[in-house]
């Protein structure tokens, strides 16, 4: 079951707040990863960021991140924006 499917059950603003907080955390983590690799040239950095996320984040976390930011990539720092398409959705979703 994906993150999104579950949290819809949590109607009301408390659920929305929690969801927003959770997303903010994911964005912060992704930002930190991008910060490390930004010292590298783009050709190495972009796949490295995506690869790190693909290796260590659960499918649910990746899906939540992709769902939220595909629509508004401009909210992400540039390197992360370029890595976004390389982030793998959860298997089977």
């Amino acid at each position: 079951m994906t993150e999104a499917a579950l949290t819809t059950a949590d109607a009301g603003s408390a659920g929305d707040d929690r969801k927003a907080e959770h997303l903010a955390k994911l964005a912060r983590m992704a930002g930190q990863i991008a910060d490390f690799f930004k010292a590298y040239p783009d050709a190495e950095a972009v796949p490295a960021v995506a690869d790190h996320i693909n290796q260590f984040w659960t499918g649910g976390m990746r899906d939540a991140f992709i769902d939220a930011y595909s629509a508004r990539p401009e909210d992400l720092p540039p390197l992360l924006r370029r890595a976004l398409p390389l982030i793998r959705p959860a298997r089977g979703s």
Partner: protein
Amino acid sequence: MALIKEIDYGTPIRLSEKTVTLSIDGQSVTVPAGTSVMAAAMSLGTKIPKLCATDSLEPFGSCRLCLVEIEGRRGTPASCTTPAEDGMVVRTQSENLSGLRKGVMELYISDHPLDCLTCSANGDCELQDMAGAVGLREVRYGYEGENHVFAKTADGLANENWLAKDTSNPYFTYDPSKCIVCNRCVRACEEVQGTFALTIAGRGFDSRVAAGPTDFLGSECVSCGACVQACPTATLMENKVIEHGQPEHSKVTTCAYCGVGCSFKAEMQGDRVIRMVPYKDGKANEGHSCVKGRFAWGYANHRDRMTKPMIRARITDPWREVSWEEAISHAASEFKRIQARYGRESVGAITSSRCTNEEVFLVQKLVRAAFRNNNVDTCARVCHSPTGYGLKTTLGTSAGTQDFKSVAKADVILIIGANPTDGHPVFASRMKKRIREGARLIVADPRRIDMVKSPHIKADYHLPLRPGTNVALLNALGHVVVTEGLIDESYVRERCDLDAFEQWARFVAREENSPEASEQYTGVPAADVRAAARLYATGGNGAIYYGLGVTEHSQGSTTVMAMANLAMATGNIGRDGVGINPLRGQNNVQGSCDMGSFPHEFSGYRHVADDSTRQVFEMMWGVPLDPEQGLRITNMLDEAVDGTFKGLYVQGEDIAQSDPNTKHVTAGLAAMECVVIQDIFLNETAKYAHVFLPGASFLEKDGTFTNAERRINRVRQVMAPLSGKDEWQVTIELARALGYEMSYAHPGEIMDEIARLTPSFAGVSYDKLEKLGSVQWPCNEKAPTGTPLMHVDRFVRGKGQFMITEFIATDERTGPRFPLLLTTGRILSQYNVGAQTRRTENGAWHDEDVLEIHPFDAESRGIRDGDLVSLASRSGDIALRAEISERMQPGVVYTTFHHAKTGANVITTDYSDWATNCPEYKVTAVEVRRTNHYSQWQEKNFEEDVTLRRIAERLPDAAE
């Protein structure tokens, strides 16, 4: 089973390529050059009488009991101080010698109490043995003369020579009336422990052992026990032996505290432990110990031990004691219900670094094969996960490069963010020994830790950096190495990836990484950084030792990689005396990582998405496995608060106390529907639990621990589990109740499965451990007896990989509201969350967490030593006592998290390492004020200590 007794050769075993051959009592013997006549005789099985000599200490030559005759030499030299020489002809027995020895013994005994029958050393006294060995039958001097034995003289006056017993140390007693002034204790404290707490005061007949300035507890003594072991008489004696008498059998096992992994003989009477004595053949400690392993094991029988399974529906209900069957089937049905309702991913487990490899392996197997997800993580997440990531990326393996012994070959020791004398005391003793022999020392630490300056130790450079600036400092060191031409070029060319090296060298050479530029962040004078870099790069074998002060930062993994860069650039990896070595916190934190406790890795650090590895596991375990990595602890808690993660099996961990940002942790736990705790105590996390499964202490376990040098040591059961069940058995039963069959008759069979599934463990078996004592992984066909040094001819990953390590300041910043930086750590006598050590006499040294603060910061806030102060961060606030300390630098305060009631982790934030989510314990912006009351959180916690720990039909004080 008998008492294990190591052979005492009398003087240290020398290593030498040259040998000498001599004749002793007509028998010929060949020994390494430098061996004493005494040790040479012992290697033939000939015990020359001795009192002041023992092979853990350099010979001293004071008792004159070990005299021998040597052909062609005048007189009767002492065999302990005489080196064996080629062609020597030695006699250890003759009329003359026997007369001389009797005379010596007579003198000793004339000033020694004759209460052998009631003496605590009866049965284990070298003085008694020697009196027997030399055939002492009478004491011509009589016992009435001047003596140290009697409190009163014959005419009833007070005897000025007599001293009362010193019982200040909670674990051993000093009875001066029995002292023969052999000096062994003084030398043990100097040579073995390196503390220099003891001296011989006075001269001649007046000379006495003294723990200055007052008594043992009031002295520098750290209660390591080395002097007690060394003492040949009852003068220094364990209180347990005084109380219960001599042990009658023993088994070798491994300390369950820190990552040094010391071997001990558990000396027993029946199933009662009398004492733990460090084992001389233990490779990690070679006969030494610290106060925790040696003395602080009484928690195993503490009245707080929980021995019955319990369940409850809500955490506010009282616990109900139930049968094992009921507890396990209840836990299983809850997990099944939760997975059915919220999905397969909604449950997980946390494995423990305090449990054995075998127990950990089973818990992660349960998660992967019975829960059928990969939501398993371990407490290494919050300590050394960056070590795994950083070393694997650069060198190819997730562990330290050396064995502990290697430090004896180091020429320059660089300690970063570790406090070995408190955290890893037995290793610190080895390190100090090497430093006394002349190795140079650089300490990078915000605090002036003991290694910076203590008796006979002085760091060449102390780099007191601001917390959170490790990367800036390491880049500055790298900058000096590159720009001043100190690179070991042939090493780099031969062994490292050259493109990556050049990329790194260009990066680190940039002006912004120079010591001068980074001084603004680190606060360390550039000149010191330059000098330290030159020393490390050119001073011979450079060895890096580091601890949680490196890993527990937003840039923890970056720092580990920066250290690897520095070591590779200077050619300091791949031989004896060099390397990069994490000082691992908990006894089995290395092992729990090796065993596949991380959500993305099977045992042996292989990613779950790797099809070929997964297929091997699927075949062996007979179920399809999830190719998606699971949740880390932090993610589990986030998702619990978010409402999607609902059930957790916690093996021997106390995340409610040990993990950062307590309020977030407890909110996560409180949001779960089923929390199962397997532990020996009703810990903080258990307040939020629904099922309690009583665990076993290390004395009740069979298994293995893997220490910080990758050494797999056996843990042996010396008493039956108090709960009636082995922990691994409980995990098996839980798996079965979940519908997944596991069956093992003995932990040795679990190890066999680990060996079959894990290439780096392929050659490990209990048989081999029995034969060799211990092995260091990798242990396989290529290295059947294990691997003390890694990366010897090439790096495990092939070419060493330099990484660009840009300094990025943490988001945790000081400001007007929180102007100080808090950093956290530990102290010698307490261990981690203190669940064990708090339940021993170790409170004599540390009975509460205090806040160390620099006099300057204290004064500007009107804080005096001992004041109750409030410590607040954006996460929360607590109150604790202040201790004014010059060890701190202005602007930085320090505390420990050993005591649950303090709640130090209420303060720490949920910031974490970018690569591994290892929490940033070491940097929190705080403010400190005087206060006169405990914080709201603490008050609530005091209350919950009772309300969330009630057990039906028991009085509330049964818990903590």
